[in-house]
């Protein structure tokens, strides 16, 4: 799957302080690897067809 991935260093630099998080240099490779996985998952999800009218299911009822 070819996905155009963002610049994860810039992402961390912008978002972490917004969330009040200090991400140590030693933790950054792991965080970047996980962001990359998440970005691929989001790209996969973006391809799924969804209707505007579909309600989300944050509290699932079976």
């Amino acid at each position, binding site marked *: 799957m070819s996905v155009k991935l963002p610049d994860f260093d810039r*992402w*961390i630099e912008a*978002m*972490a302080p917004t*969330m*009040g*998080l*200090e*991400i*140590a240099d030693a*933790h950054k490779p*792991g*965080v*970047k*690897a*996980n*962001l990359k*996985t*998440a970005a*691929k*998952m*989001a790209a*996969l*999800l*973006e*391809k*799924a067809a*969804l*209707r505007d009218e*579909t*309600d*989300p*299911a*944050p*509290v*699932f*009822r*079976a």
Partner: protein
Amino acid sequence: MKSTAGVAEIARAVSTTATSARAVVMAALGRIEANNGRVNAFTDMLAARALAKADAVDEAIRATKTLPLAGVPFAAKNLYDLEGLVTRAGSALNRDNPAATADAALVEKLEAAGAICVGATNMDEFAYGFTGENAHDGPSRNPHDMTLMTGGSSAGSAAAVAAGMVPLALGSDTNGSIRVPASFCGLFGLKPTYGRLSRRGMFPFVASLDHPGTFARSVEDLALSYDALQGFDMADPAMVKRPLEAISGRLERGGAGLRVALADDLNGEPEVREMVDLARKTLGVEKRIKLPDVQAARAAAFLITMAEGAALHATRLRTRADDFDPAVRDRLLAGALLPAGWIERAQKFRRSFQTRMLDLFGEVDVILAPSAPMRAPKIGQVTASFGGVDMPLRPNLGLFTQPFSFIGLPVAAVPIAVPGRRLPLGLQVIAAPWREDVALRVARQLERAGVAKAPVAPGFADE
């Protein structure tokens, strides 16, 4: 009682005073003491409490009280509250918390039925993992081969049952944390419908996905414990008020009259396909069914887990990031940085996927799929071949379990013994919401045919 004795056998023996709950608990404590150093299943023991409860059970039996789980020792994953113990959820961070002041609802339920909790079990930190490895407590080891992973996150619970320390254990399953270790350790497991069992007194992970459930070595044992665990509890907002639906008397109907199909899109490594084929042939299943957008379902569950998990731990990530298990910390830190739009889309997709999956249950009653894409990996292994492509192990062990817990479906995890293969492999028997009975009936049919079995691991079974 021998290490191989199950829930039903023990309850029968204690109820008829052929043995006492005290003798059963003493034997279980002895086996744990002898073997826990090797297996690393338990992190906390409750010997004094367990013996006191055993005496109370023996007294109740003498007073002719009926207790369906009389004297059955069980373990609880260490995210279940146990009065007097700190609920660590596999973390170092929670060790500073005060001890629990009451037992979790499901511990109460089992003990009310006469079962006895003997201790708390090891797990992936904060339930965020499928490996059974833990940076603070060390890995749980697979009793079938001590060099292999148990799977997680309910790692010690699975190891304890597979090693014959106890016949029953409580676990939890957010994305596959009962079904993956049940597969790797060769056990039966039950992840009931989302909203079926109370989560009161359980340390959360992803509130909209967390399911409590159990491990055992037979379908009858799973059903007996499940019957004792049911019951509405308004303290859990996800719980749905339903009548008690006891199923232990209905297992022998097997799959008769049920429409069973094989999921077409979840295949796994060759030995996994071989296992599924054996189960399929045993049940006489010809129908294959295509699941709608199953990869996207898994992706959505993955993103919701990252984001909800990160939100739960946000304060700890800000103040004590270094105290997390590194593998968990980096996933949670990344989860704290995800855009809201991704998560909203994932939750919308969840509704759409649920609708389409429920339509499928108009055509079939049961869907079969493997529990894991591969057999138990080596402890410490970080990558594995998935369809010939080398990929990180950790995020991919839940590939086949995530789509079903995502929409709360009940699943029985069934250990299939393929002739000539040393290790068992797990099959998911997936049913429509609230049809745990159907999932367990099909599991029972496989067990009765001799294809599904969960023996105590060789080397741990009493002569």
